[in-house]
């Protein structure tokens, strides 16, 4: 971690072109930069017309924005990918085992591997889920594991997204756009397809249908509505799966089932891929102010009348405070060491750790336990003295609210700029589907890239962009 030896995924540590990029590099050298610039603009046009936008909260104007797309693909070899997959699969199995345990006998707490208050006092823990048997025994059907890389073989898990991971529509549309613009690249390189994702997702959901299902299962996607920042993705997935996109106002309980209002009356839904947060699902059982949900949905769920994907209460597995226990969690349930490493994490709730963090703020990244989207965090090395002083106060006031991590020398991948290729930091979110008996990982995922030179923040809400992610057939 010292010395900031930066690893570039195309050029390695120096200028030794790495194997997966050979064919691409030859193509790129033969391209006229002016044509590529035109293609970059063309890509933006395609995105605008397709309507791949995200809504920015609190801005009436420009309410829909494009996430910048960079035309240089990120390329991963098949061998690298297989290794990653083993680690991801192990982790996702452990997460589901952990969730089952937490909502049943809580063996892991009895064994003293996790402090009881980490669960009991956690907002993401839903007592309403205790003793509930989710159909197929699965809690997180759809998972996104955020990975960062620091060297040829060093990957770290930055975050587990076990609630409602977003971004899969970008993975699919980025590929679609690249296929349209540079078909020749796909003739020259053997890139594993991602396009089966919607079909796989549908199959996964069908396989988790509840006992109450009568005939072929009816699937629907539930969205908070057209003003939600990820509405495009919700509509996109429903469309690609050929299922209805519903809101709370389309739903009510009819004869013990969740039913949607159709032009021919109310019809029951068997599996609901909900993109609505737990607390808004059911105003009777959770947040009583919610107008997004269906009163009593939780009771129907508990009675086996519907499958919710992901299950309520999965947030306890991707909470940032729980994250630091993931190595123990994997070992406890899988009986083997975690293949994928965690980023070393200091839990500021522990006095020793807090003291260390306060002494080393300049070198650390400090995050809110429940934060997301890159908000409310401190990046020590790039922060001003004033920022650090202000953050120190917040940290001292509520230490339990924070964790700290070293600033990793994140790998870079080149982006296309006016001056040619330039390295920028990236992360990777592969998408995982879980169904009874199998775990499926789509070869690729969402690569987010910090477009600003030197920046480590890849979040789209803070000026990050995306890239197409290739996994090659070796």
């Amino acid at each position: 971690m010292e010395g900031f030896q930066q690893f570039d995924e195309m050029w390695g540590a120096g200028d030794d072109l790495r194997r997966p990029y050979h064919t691409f590099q030859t193509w790129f050298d033969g391209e006229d930069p002016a044509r590529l610039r035109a293609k970059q603009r063309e890509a933006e046009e395609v995105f605008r017309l397709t309507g791949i936008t995200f809504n920015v909260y609190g801005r009436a104007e420009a309410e829909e924005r494009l996430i910048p797309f960079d035309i240089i693909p990120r390329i991963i070899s098949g061998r690298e990918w297989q290794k990653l997959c083993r680690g991801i699969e192990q982790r996702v199995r452990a997460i589901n085992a952990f969730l089952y345990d937490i909502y049943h006998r809580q063996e892991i707490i009895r064994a003293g591997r996790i402090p009881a208050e980490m669960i009991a006092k956690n907002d993401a823990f839903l007592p309403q889920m205790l003793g509930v048997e989710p159909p197929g025994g699965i809690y997180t059907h759809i998972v996104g594991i955020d990975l960062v890389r620091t060297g040829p073989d060093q990957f770290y898990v930055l975050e587990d997204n076990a609630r409602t991971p977003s971004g899969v529509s970008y993975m699919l549309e980025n590929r679609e756009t690249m296929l349209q613009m540079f078909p020749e690249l796909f003739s020259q390189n053997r890139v594993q397809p991602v396009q089966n994702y919607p079909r796989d997702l549908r199959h996964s959901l069908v396989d988790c249908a509840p006992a109450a299902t009568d005939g072929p299962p009816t699937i629907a996607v539930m969205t908070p509505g057209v003003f939600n920042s990820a509405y495009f993705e919700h509509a996109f997935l429903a469309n690609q799966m050929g299922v209805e996109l519903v809101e709370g106002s389309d739903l009510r309980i009819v004869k013990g089932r969740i039913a949607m209002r159709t032009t021919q009356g109310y019809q029951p839904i068997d599996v609901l891929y909900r993109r609505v947060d737990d607390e808004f699902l059911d105003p009777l059982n959770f947040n009583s102010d919610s107008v997004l949900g269906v009163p009593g949905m939780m009771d129907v769920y508990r009675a086996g009348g519907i499958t919710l994907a992901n299950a309520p209460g999965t947030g306890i597995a991707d909470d940032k405070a729980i994250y630091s226990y993931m190595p123990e969690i994997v070992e406890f349930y899988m009986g083997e060491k975690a293949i994928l490493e965690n980023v070393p994490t200091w839990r500021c709730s522990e006095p020793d750790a807090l003291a260390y963090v306060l002494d080393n703020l300049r070198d650390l990244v400090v995050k809110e336990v429940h934060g997301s989207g890159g908000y409310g965090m401190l990046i020590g090395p790039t922060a001003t003295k004033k920022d650090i002083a202000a953050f120190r106060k917040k940290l001292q006031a509520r230490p339990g609210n924070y964790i700290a991590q070293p600033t990793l020398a994140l790998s870079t991948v080149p982006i296309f700029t006016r001056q040619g290729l330039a390295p920028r930091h990236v992360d990777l979110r592969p998408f995982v589907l879980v169904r009874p008996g199998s775990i499926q990982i789509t070869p690729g995922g969402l690569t987010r890239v910090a477009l600003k030179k030197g920046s480590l923040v890849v979040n789209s809400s803070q000026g990050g962009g995306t890239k197409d992610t290739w996994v090659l057939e070796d």
Partner: protein
Amino acid sequence: MLGKTANGLYWMYRHLERAENTSRLVETGQRIALTRSGAQEDEWGSVLQTAAVSGGYHQNHDTVTKEAAINWMLRSPDNPSSVLSAISAARQNARLVRTGITHEVWEAVNGSYMAAKEALSRRVNERDLPKVTGLIRQRTALVRGATHGTMLRNDLYDFARIGTFLERADNTARILDVKYYVLLPSIYSVGSNIDNVQWETILLSVSANGGYRIVHGNSVRPREIAKFLILDKRMPRSLYFCASKLRDNLGYLASDYGTRMPSHTLIDTLLRKFMSHDIDAIFDYGLHEYIQNVLGSLQELGMQIEIDYQFYE
């Protein structure tokens, strides 16, 4: 399909049709203004009335001027029926029903919105007006073409068509409602220059001048115009044509779903009561009262469809 989706499709196509009709009315107004001398304010006043946006206009303006009228109809955000408002609303509905329309239809409507927003980002000067109205016509035609060419002929399509033809029938009926007196026999100005202008306006407002010539030749007679716009079976904007399309599409829904609804009775009654007589009978009954009744029936039908197919909770 969801009731909400039926609602969204219905309004998406109503708004597209409205954008096209309003744009056509602006074109007609401009054409009349350029080719005739005389009191333009009256003409623009009546164009505003025909577009059913006169009330809102007068709440926001003291006098009728050509510039203000054109601006109000094309791009005012305060006018919910302005071309830009209607296209924005169509696109917003398209986003809501994204799962119910094809990729091509979505791209066409999103492209229309982007083009309209760009073209109508500032006041349109006289020189650019033909280009802008032409653009609106082309863009909405593209959506219609994509719809026709790529959408499955199922209930989704039926609701799209029902929205289109209800709006179109409403538009044609309103044009007749505002201009009906021009078509009445009058002892004063029959065959005068003024009448010819008015008659031409009516035909242009529904893009029917070419069709009229094919069917009735070059002699423009008010009764023939009324007949053409109300009863002609082949003219795609006539009341009869729209009403029979409504009956067809409602009929497909009935056979698809295996249930007849109250709206089916309403459309059958509308056709029997208003479309089964000849034009002389309509004139004997009173053209104005007749149009008023048709407008009322169309409105009632629209409301019944919303109930029958559970557009709302």
